[in-house]
C-alpha cells in the first residue's frame, strides 16, 4: 500500500498515539506521520478529520478518518489481517483483552494525568496512591492472560500489551520525578519484567520517548492545566 494512503496525526508525547504507531509497526505498514503541536494549536486537517473530539491520534486511510486509539488499533488489526494478529482469535479472550484495556483507560489513566497536571503535593500523593492501587489487579491479570508466556498477548505483543505499554514513557517520568517505583519487585514483579520485554520489542523500542525529554515537556503541564481550568471557568 502506498505510503500516502496511510497517514497518522499524532503527538510524540501522547501514549494514545503510540498505541496506533505500535500497531502499524506490528503490521509493517508504511505511513506518513504528521506531528500535531497540541499545546499550541490544532491543524486544519485534525479539526476536519476529528470534528467531534478534536484529538490525536487520527488515522487517515484512503481519505477515511478513524478516531479513538483502541478503535484505530482494532481497525489496523482487521485491515492488515495478513500480518501478526493483535487481538486474540477466541471471543472470550478478546472480551478479556477489551475488559482490561477499558480498565486501564478508566483506572490507570485518570490518576496518571491528575499527577501530571497537579500543582500541589497532596494532589500528587493522592494520584500516586490511586496509580499504585490500579496496578494490583493488573499484576494478577497478567498471570491469567499471559498463561506463563512473555506478554499479555502470549508469545507476541497483543492488544492489552499495547493498551498498557504505551504508558511506560510517562510511567518512567513519574517514577523519576516522584522518586518512587510504581513497578517494583515486591508488588508488581511480573509487570516489572514485562515492561522490560515490552520496551525492547522491535515494534516498540524506537517509539518510547526519552525519559528526560518527556520530563522536560511534563514541566509545562501544571501551568497548562491551570490555564485550561481558568478558561473553562470563564466559559461557564
Amino acid at each position: 500500500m502506498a505510503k500516502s494512503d496511510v497517514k497518522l496525526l499524532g503527538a510524540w508525547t501522547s501514549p494514545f498515539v503510540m498505541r496506533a504507531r505500535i500497531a502499524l509497526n506490528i503490521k509493517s505498514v508504511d505511513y506518513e506521520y504528521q506531528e500535531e503541536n497540541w499545546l499550541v494549536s490544532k491543524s486544519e486537517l485534525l479539526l476536519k478529520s476529528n470534528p467531534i473530539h478534536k484529538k490525536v491520534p487520527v488515522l487517515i486511510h484512503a481519505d477515511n478518518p478513524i478516531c479513538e486509539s483502541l478503535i484505530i488499533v482494532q481497525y489496523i488489526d482487521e485491515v492488515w489481517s495478513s500480518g501478526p494478529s493483535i487481538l486474540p482469535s477466541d471471543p472470550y479472550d478478546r472480551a478479556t483483552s477489551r475488559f482490561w484495556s477499558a480498565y486501564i483507560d478508566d483506572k490507570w489513566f485518570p490518576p496518571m494525568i491528575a499527577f501530571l497536571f497537579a500543582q500541589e503535593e497532596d494532589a500528587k500523593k493522592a494520584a500516586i496512591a490511586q496509580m499504585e492501587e490500579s496496578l494490583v489487579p493488573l499484576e494478577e491479570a497478567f498471570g491469567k492472560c499471559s498463561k506463563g508466556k512473555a506478554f499479555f498477548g502470549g508469545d507476541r505483543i497483543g492488544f492489552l500489551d499495547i493498551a498498557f505499554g504505551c504508558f511506560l514513557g510517562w510511567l518512567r517520568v513519574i517514577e523519576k520525578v516522584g522518586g518512587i517505583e510504581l513497578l517494583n519487585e515486591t508488588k508488581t514483579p511480573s509487570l516489572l519484567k514485562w515492561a522490560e520485554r515490552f520496551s525492547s520489542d522491535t515494534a516498540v523500542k524506537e517509539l518510547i520517548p526519552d525519559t528526560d525529554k518527556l520530563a522536560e515537556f511534563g514541566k509545562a503541564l501544571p501551568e497548562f492545566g491551570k490555564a485550561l481550568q481558568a478558561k473553562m471557568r470563564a466559559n461557564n
Partner: protein
Amino acid sequence: MADEVILLDFWPSPFGMRVRIALAEKGIKYEYKEEDLRNKSPLLLQMNPIHKKIPVLVHNGKPICESLIQVQYIDEVWKGKASLLPSDPCARAQSRFWADYVDKKIYDLGRKIWMCKGEEQEASTKEFIECLKVLEAELGDRHYFGGSNLGYVDVVFVPFYTWFHAYEQCGNFSIEAECPKIIAWAKRCMQKESVSKSLPDHEKVYGFVLELKKKFGIE
C-alpha cells in the same frame, strides 16, 4: 452441549438493556437474575470482583463484564444470525466510534439533568440536546444507525429512550421538539420485539428516578 447463559441485571439499567436487546436479537435463551444493588449477590461479587457492577453476562460459567464488551462478545459468539457490527472494517470502526460517543456522553449528561438543579442542570440539558443533535445528524436519513437493520449503535443508544421521559420531566424540556428524528428513530426501534420486550415502561423509569431523588434529597 447446550449453552448456559445468565444475565445479572437491574431492570432500569440502560447498560443491562443493551445486553437484553442483543440476546433477543440473536434469539438466545438465558436466565435473567435481578440484582438488588443495595445488597449485591455473592454471584455478582464473584463474577465481577473489579467493578462489582451489573450487567454481568455469564456464559457457561465464565463472566463477561462491561456492556459494550458484552454486546460485541454476543455478536462474535452467535455469528450466524442478526449481525450487529458490519463486516467492513471502516464501517465497524465508525460503529465503534459512535457507540463510544454515546457511552461517553449520554449517561453522564442525563444523570446531571435529573440530579442537579439551576445553572448546572441547565448547562447539562443544553449539552445533552447538543449531543442528541450530533447523533441525529449522524443518523441522517437512515432507518437505523445500522442501516436497514438494527445494529451495534442502535443497541447501545436506544435503551436511553426509556429514560427520555424522566430527563424531560426533570429538566423541563421536550426532546421531540429539539430532535424529532431521534424520537422517530427510537419509535422505529420499539417496533421490534427484541427492543420493546427488553425496555421497561418509561413511567416506571420516571417513578424510579423520583424515588432516587427523594433518597438523595434532591427536590
